[in-house]
């Protein structure tokens, strides 16, 4: 087990290296010059002579050969320095510290909601197969996996936010500042972020549960006269979790993708919105740093997922 984890960690480092190379060079393929964009966006009404532009370029180290720039960047990351944003003129670490907690707050909540509710509704649909509960859950999962999330966001804003006035329309407040307001504000964004995973998890859970229920050992358990709860929870549930866990691992990436859209709509100052504006503003340093951190998160989650297979199904050996 330990050797397996060590091997996986080495792999993760290799993957991370490739990620940095990819994002670094892809960003530099973008047509256009971040310095020009910055100057044009901030200084429309002011003339800026070319010497000043060159000076700015040197300030951000963009005048050096591209390979040198890469190694400088990597070197700085090891020192915990993610560089300075061209647009914000601010340390990227500071920007990320402002933004990541917000996205993680939403993301983790969405992940939990998506997993727990997904598993629960899938489970219910499976053990009540063909009954009315199944007939409500299954069609809802169809909507969940097909609706574009920005449409869902808009529908929620208009119905729940505007017409029914149940929840605030947009904005974000830290839960440490005002927990109740914060919770009310994140309900709609969390629904949007979670809806796809929730539906996918429920579908997966339902079908793998149905399959497990049909297995011999479950029939044996029934035959032994064990109660429904014991059979379901102790025997069936654990074994049907494996494919669902895989989905949850993939869900992390989906949540980051979703946050790009959802944070824009609900005016949430998270990392997704920062990412989108930085991609358009070609703020290399910010895009690189965020991608790096997201990659680390995705890798760690996947590692945990893979390790948890072993716990869920002892038949899996780590060779």
């Amino acid at each position: 087990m330990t050797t397996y984890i060590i091997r996986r960690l080495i792999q993760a480092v290799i993957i991370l290296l490739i990620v940095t190379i990819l994002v670094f060079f892809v960003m530099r393929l973008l047509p256009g010059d971040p310095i020009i964009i910055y100057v044009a966006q901030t200084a429309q009404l002011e003339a800026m002579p070319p010497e000043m532009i060159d000076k700015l370029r040197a300030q951000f180290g963009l005048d050096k050969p591209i390979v040198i720039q890469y190694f400088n960047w990597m070197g700085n990351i090891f020192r915990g320095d993610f560089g300075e944003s061209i647009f914000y003129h601010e340390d990227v670490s500071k920007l990320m510290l402002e933004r990541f907690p917000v996205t993680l707050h939403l993301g983790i909540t969405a992940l939990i909601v998506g997993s727990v509710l997904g598993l629960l509704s899938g489970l219910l649909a499976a053990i009540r197969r063909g009954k009315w509960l199944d007939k409500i859950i299954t069609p809802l999962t169809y909507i969940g996996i097909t609706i574009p999330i920005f449409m869902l966001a808009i529908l929620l804003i208009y119905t729940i936010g505007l017409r029914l006035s149940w929840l605030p329309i947009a904005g974000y407040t830290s839960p440490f500042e005002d927990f109740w307001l914060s919770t009310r504000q994140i309900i709609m964004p969390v629904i949007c972020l979670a809806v796809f995973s929730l539906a996918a998890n429920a579908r997966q859970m339902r079908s793998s549960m149905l399959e497990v229920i049909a297995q011999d050992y479950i029939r044996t358990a029934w035959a032994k006269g064990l109660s429904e709860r014991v059979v379901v929870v102790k025997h069936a549930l654990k074994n049907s979790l494996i494919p669902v866990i895989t989905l949850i691992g993939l869900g992390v990436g989906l949540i980051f993708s979703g946050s790009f859209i959802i944070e824009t709509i609900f005016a949430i100052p998270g990392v997704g919105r920062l990412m989108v504006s930085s991609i358009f503003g070609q703020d290399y340093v910010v895009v690189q740093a965020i991608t790096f951190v997201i990659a680390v998160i995705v890798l760690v989650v996947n590692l945990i997922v893979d390790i948890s297979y072993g716990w869920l199904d002892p038949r899996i050996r780590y060779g």
Partner: protein
Amino acid sequence: MAEERNITGFEEAPPPVSEWRRFRRVFFSRGVVLFGLIILVLLFLVAVLAPWISPYDPYKMSVGKSLEHPSSQHLLGTDILGRDTLSRLIYGSRTALMVGFISVGIAGVIGIPLGIIAGYLGGFLNTIIMRTMDALLCFPMLLLALVLAAVLGGGIQNVIVALSVATIPGYARVACGVTMSIRENDYILSAQAMGSSDALIMFKHILPNTFPPLIVLMTMQLGALILAEAGLSFLGIGIEPPGAAWGAMVNAGRNYLLNNPELSFSPCIAIMLVVFAFNMVGDGLRDALDPRLRGLL
């Protein structure tokens, strides 16, 4: 990551899919699958027959007044430039299919051979290829597409390229997994013993075995791609206007939700139906081709 997971699925080669009858029985047994299939057939028909069935030129301005409500002249009303929404919806089916199939095609053509090579030859090559694929997977798909579309500019071909690159790793992983699971099978070993070249073995013996899971994956990806195109449109990187694309139509129409909800809802329903159909048909194919894929795809 791939090699550990195959234990759950590919312990041996899937049986050759010879039983057409069994396939038919399983595939057509579920109502939803059939329903999905009908939607897809209709979609193809609409796309092919678009010039004949669409009531107006989808790109022509002022065929009606600006923002007309649904009427017998314009069944789904008109948009801000007075273009017929129904015609644009009909032509949008072409865009949807084109984006879906070409992206899946490109991603498959690149991803599958990479996966097979990595799985069959193993070693250092495997590390390089599969870690690169993992690295690509670390980019959220939308991020990758966003960056690529920003590099390449808008326009349908660039959206296709962006979506293809974002989906390559999925194919490579599955192909690699299948390959590794059957690499040591007798018929492969005997082919090797008989002196067949690696290229021939990969092409003749391994490639066909990767088809069942990949066909399922591709079908499901088609739906995901159509949704991703809608997401890209929302973020401002989508099919180049005035081309009729559903995602772009939903996004453009949302400004008029209060007075002209049909502008946004009709392409939205179209997207949902088609995504639903691809998913259901994908499910059906999976159950019919290889039920053991459940939980993996």
